[in-house]
């Protein structure tokens, strides 16, 4: 049931992608922006319903698997991009972010083999876990938006510096706007991610009886956190524009890399979301 609803949401996402991309190609059709925003909002609501239904069906256990994680992450990403579009009125952003949401969502529509435990022990069923999962996924999706904005920045910088003044030049927003948005996304993502890290070690204490375990998941998360901390700090020492954009993309590459590696590691080792099967008897 939840899968059917999710597929309907995906159709609306596809519609939003089409509207934004056509707007980007033909900026004369200004109304497409509103169409895209509406479709995106509807898709967001439907996906929210799908997630709610999924919680009923699996009791929340699905979020321990990669698939459930991707579903929630795309949902939060779509929500965040709706907020960003409301706040900044940079319609061309839709053409860069929404396709990303759709692409990440697609595999979850077809890879439906359960990759999560059947029951979640009551010991770890606490609000802190929910906060941990939501903040971690929101943090990652905000970092993704930052990376998307950084790509836009680099494209526009190439136009401006290379004196091309072509189609991209007129369609993309100003460098200052993109740079500022990138910085704000990194800052906001960093705050959210910090929260995820804190609640994560809180959960580790519950599961493993100690907050730090030299667990691969913990180590990579801490490295990512330090990298983003450095970026937030570098901003004050003259890291602007191009260099910052490259750094944003590289950092997000690391996030994706660590997520993928940790999830394809053989069974028994720590997986994304923390393994509790071996520990809790």
């Amino acid at each position, binding site marked *: 049931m939840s899968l059917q609803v999710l597929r309907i949401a995906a159709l609306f996402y596809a519609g939003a992608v089409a509207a934004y991309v056509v707007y980007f190609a033909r900026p004369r059709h200004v109304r497409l922006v509103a169409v895209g925003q509406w479709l995106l909002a509807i898709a967001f609501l439907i996906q929210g319903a799908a997630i709610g239904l999924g919680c009923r069906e699996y009791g929340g256990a699905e979020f321990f698997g990669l698939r459930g994680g991707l579903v929630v992450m795309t949902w939060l990403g779509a929500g965040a991009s709706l907020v960003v579009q409301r706040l900044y009125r940079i319609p061309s952003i839709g053409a860069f972010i929404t396709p990303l949401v759709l692409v990440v969502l697609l595999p979850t529509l077809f890879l439906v083999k359960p990759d999560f435990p059947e029951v979640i022990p009551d010991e770890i069923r606490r609000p802190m876990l929910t906060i941990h999962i939501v903040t971690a996924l929101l943090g990652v999706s905000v970092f993704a938006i930052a990376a998307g904005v950084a790509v836009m920045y680099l494209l526009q910088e190439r136009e401006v510096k290379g004196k091309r003044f072509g189609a991209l030049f007129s369609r993309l927003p100003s460098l200052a706007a993109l740079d500022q948005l990138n910085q704000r996304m990194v800052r906001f993502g960093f705050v959210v991610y910090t929260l995820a890290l804190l609640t994560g070690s809180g959960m580790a204490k519950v599961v493993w009886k100690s907050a730090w375990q030299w667990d691969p998941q913990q180590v990579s998360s801490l490295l990512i956190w330090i990298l983003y901390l450095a970026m937030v700090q570098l901003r004050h020492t*003259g890291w602007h524009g191009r260099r910052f954009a490259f750094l944003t993309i590289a950092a997000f590459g690391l996030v994706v890399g660590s997520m993928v590696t940790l999830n394809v590691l053989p069974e028994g080792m720590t997986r994304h979301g923390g393994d509790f099967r071996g520990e809790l008897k």
Partner: protein
Amino acid sequence: MSRGRELHLVGLSHKSAPVAVRERVALGGDVLKDALAELSARPGVGEAMVVSTCNRVECYVYGDSSDEARRFFLDRAREAGGHLYEHTGREAVRHLFRVAASLDSMVVGEPQILGQVKEAYGIAASAQSAGTYVSRLCNRAFATAKRVRNETEIARGSGSVSQVAVELVEKIFGNLKDRAVLLVGAGKMGALSAKALRDLGADRILVTNRSPEKARALADEIQGSAEPWDSLHSLLALADVVIVSTGAASYVLTQELVTHVMKARRGRSICLIDLAVPRNVDPACGQQDNVYAYDIDDLQKVVLQTHAARADEAIRAEGIVEAEVMAFAQERETRAALPVLAELRRRAEQIARVEADRTLSHLGAKLDDKGRKSVEAMAQAIVNKLLHGPTARLKEAAASGDSDLPGAAAELFGVETEESPIPPEPRR
């Protein structure tokens, strides 16, 4: 019918007359309003409108001849006579549509002209010299301009060097609020660009020059502040947009200087626009991070591209204008035919009613309600069948632009129409 009345245009523009002549006939505001009121009161003039901008003065008269429109110019300046152009009927309509769509402008595609034509119409309307014809004409002209703007890319790109500079600065800094512009040297183009940036909301304009007097004079002219030449380095650290146009024979902004400045700016972006020939900014400066450097050739290239692209788009725009001119003519003719039709039908129905009543009063009580209704229906049916052919034919003729048939019909049946200059004798 109104075959005697047509749109007449007499005018002069940047294409036909030098500014010395144009400025002698140009007029605006209340003066124009009075002139229009006077013009439209003259015999043979139905409606009138005057478009007066710095590039053109054009007098549109809807009336019997172009004489009064020509006099409008000759009364103001005798020497205008040799520079006037004239168009009548469809040609005049086309001309107005082309003007409004900015196809006749000095810089094709520039956006101001439509507003100026709208203003001209507003003045004519307030002087009560614009009636139904001119208002329909103008509405169609505005719609045409809008279509050209939306359906072609004629207004895209930048038509002048300072416009290109402004567009570049916008793409780098977005909002110019709280940004400072530094003008190095006293070139005319630099001052123009600085003014354009100020209009965009640039917060401060700093002016510096080797000669302090020149700096002060220019600063006064563009409401900036004059700064000493010695503090160039700190000025560069402060300003976000630097427009350089000095007469120096070598680089004023060297790579070394800019590297220093960027350190002082902590990497904040800077845009260097070099309008001087020989160049004043080392082109290698642009290779540094967050330094955007352009010279006059870069900007001029964009202007040329824009002009070429606009020339291509202008061809498509002409097609739209042509279609709209046709549509306007057709609409007018259809409208001319409709009153004839309505009047024809009204009369026929009136006759049918009178005749039916007469018949019914003769028959009196011999008929029941049903019978009465049948008689009335028969009368109506005869009218409908009789008029069906002529109605279809008239509508067809009007739609295909044939204005003779509606006129002939009006004459044949003796009906008046709205636009007839002389009402025909009522015949029975």
